[in-house]
């Protein structure tokens, strides 16, 4: 789960991370009031969406007067911001964050992420701030300092020393940085994040480190013990069909293709997408109805897939292991009736009682149901059917 910049900064401030004074606003009035409370004569207006690249896309503006502030906020609230991370539709800006300005002497990068190979969090710092860290890693890896923190000992002074000397900081800067990174690590650890990114981390004219931007991602599996984080979820930022699927225990991700997929198991679901592409089609979605597919999950799955007008055929690929295929076949027939599937339905059921299942489907004599014998056969038939429907 991800949260907004303003929410991340509030959490980090609680841990002692230095941030600038700021306030979130959803209306022009709130923004003007916030500016008055913040004081000063210039502010930064930042669009609050869950995507990077806001600056280049016009989602971050420096304003130098009250009139400019009003004009900018009016324009930004309600606009669709298109960045390299939002897709072509962009994201609707419903909230802005107003922040005081700062003197920037230098920009750094500081992030914490789970290192899957080392199986522990790793702190990544760089003297190159404000650009994508992957770009720095590819072009000038010597400008990156990485320190893994073994959870058995936690964050120690030597970790901080490795970072500050690695970055070549002065004695005064070292103190501020050490304090900052220690606080950041504690937030990462206690809130069970999978990512914190401060980019840029700025050094001001008083040699203090301040988080100019903040991004936090959390381990979904740990949210059950972090209700305070769950409360921060902004439903406007999520794909509605993906949220709905999730509430029924389905895992759905919308894609751009024409062949809808309904599969049990994540690995098989990914493979089904792959083989559709291999056969010359484009998968319209990823959908895992769970290892043990049931009539209910299948019905819901059809409903969600069919909402996508791009879908011209659906490939149902279920390996019924312990769940019996004849039961699934009956479930599919019920679901087809209930959700009114009109487009071709290519069904491949394998596993226990698969022969009976095929018989059940064939005896039902439904025009748009096509049975398939295996994975490749199903994918081929689905791609062909979708192609014919699309014409």
């Amino acid at each position, binding site marked *: 789960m991800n949260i907004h910049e303003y929410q991340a900064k509030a959490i980090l401030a609680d841990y002692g991370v230095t941030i600038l004074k700021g306030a979130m606003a959803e209306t022009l009035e709130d923004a003007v009031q916030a500016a008055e409370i913040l004081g000063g004569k210039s502010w930064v207006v930042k669009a609050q969406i869950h995507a990077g690249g806001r600056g280049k896309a016009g989602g971050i503006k420096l304003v130098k007067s009250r009139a400019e502030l009003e004009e900018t906020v009016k324009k930004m609230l309600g606009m669709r911001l298109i960045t390299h991370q939002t897709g072509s539709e962009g994201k609707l800006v419903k909230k802005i964050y107003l922040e005081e300005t700062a003197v920037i002497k230098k920009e750094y990068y500081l992030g914490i992420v789970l290192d899957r190979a080392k199986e522990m969090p790793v702190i990544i710092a760089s003297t190159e701030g404000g650009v994508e860290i992957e770009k720095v890693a590819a072009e000038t890896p010597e400008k990156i300092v990485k320190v893994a923190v073994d959870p058995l000992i936690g964050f120690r002074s030597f970790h901080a020393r490795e970072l500050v000397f690695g970055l070549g900081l002065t004695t005064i800067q070292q103190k501020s940085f050490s304090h900052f990174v220690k606080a950041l690590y504690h937030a990462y650890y206690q809130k069970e994040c999978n990512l914190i990114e401060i980019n840029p981390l700025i050094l001001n004219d008083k040699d203090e480190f301040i988080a100019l931007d903040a991004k936090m991602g959390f381990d979904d*599996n740990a949210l059950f013990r972090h209700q305070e984080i769950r409360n921060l979820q902004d439903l406007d930022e999520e794909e509605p069909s993906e949220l709905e699927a999730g509430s029924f225990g389905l895992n759905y991700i919308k894609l751009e293709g024409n062949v809808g997929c309904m599969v049990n198991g994540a690995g098989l679901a990914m493979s089904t997408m792959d083989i559709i592409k291999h056969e010359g089609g484009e998968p319209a979605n990823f959908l895992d109805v769970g290892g043990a597919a049931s009539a209910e999950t299948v019905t819901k799955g059809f409903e969600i897939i069919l909402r996508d007008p791009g879908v011209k055929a659906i490939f149902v690929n279920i390996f019924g*292991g312990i769940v019996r295929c004849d039961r699934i076949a009956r479930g599919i027939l019920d679901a087809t009736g209930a959700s009114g599937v009109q487009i071709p339905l290519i069904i491949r059921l394998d596993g226990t009682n698969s022969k009976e299942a095929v018989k059940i489907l064939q005896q039902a004599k439904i025009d748009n149901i096509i049975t398939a014998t295996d994975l490749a056969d199903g994918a081929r038939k689905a791609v062909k059917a979708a192609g014919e429907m699309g014409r």
Partner: protein
Amino acid sequence: MSILVNKQSKVLVQGFTGKEATFHSEQCLSYGTNIVGGVTPGKGGQIHLGKPVFNTVREAVRATGADVSMILVPSAFAADAIMEAAAAEIRVIVCITEGIPVQDVMYAKKYVKDKGSVLIGPNCPGIITSEESKIGIMPGFVFKKGTIGLISKSGTLTYEMAKQIVINGAGISTAIGIGGDPIIGTTFVDLLKLFKDDPETEAVVMIGEIGGDLEIQAADYIEQEFTKPVVAFIAGQTAPRGKRMGHAGAIIAGSKGTAIEKMNALKNAGVNIAETPAVVGETIVKIMKNKE
């Protein structure tokens, strides 16, 4: 032979009396798995599925001599169950439970390693030595005895692969679902090492997916030390970046962990890459025939 488990394995089920655990324990028993008992705190002394129930793993081990454990407890308690098993010196701990917080697994794995036990999973279908012992939730009938070792990050895709192997006239020695979480107990490399020394296993099929770099580690190991034929398939060639594809660990972070990157590494290590999931069985069987 085979790896990790066989007919002699004495299996304990943690969370034994739960609904899911009861169902899957019955399936395991009918496959022939030697389940010697189970653990459900507070239900010690009862008999369930004809086997004794204990309050703690330590008690159960003392009474039954169990050396393998299958964990089917809710995710909030699973890491504790893993560590309890390791503390009681269970040799092979198979954790089926999905949705365990990463931080919990991080600690549990370190502890298990420290105790010298093996953790399989979490978030996996388990392990099966064909026609001997099934410790997991896979459909046993798919796995016919043979000489191919199977390692996979996925559940149903493993069954698909096993079926393909059998249809093509071969069989499986041991199949292990290693799970799709960001941190897992046993990796491709760990198992390749065991298959290397297993005389019954002549070739290996490995099924990877996007996210992390375990497949790349496997490629390095295979290149240096593994001489048996390997066929690999990597799922998620069409997966979009930055999206979690069902498994907690199946995510392309930035530009890292793509299917193509893994396929290239494996290809360079001499592994035969199955271009689609539909040709894995025929590919491995063909390679083995050519070898003869």
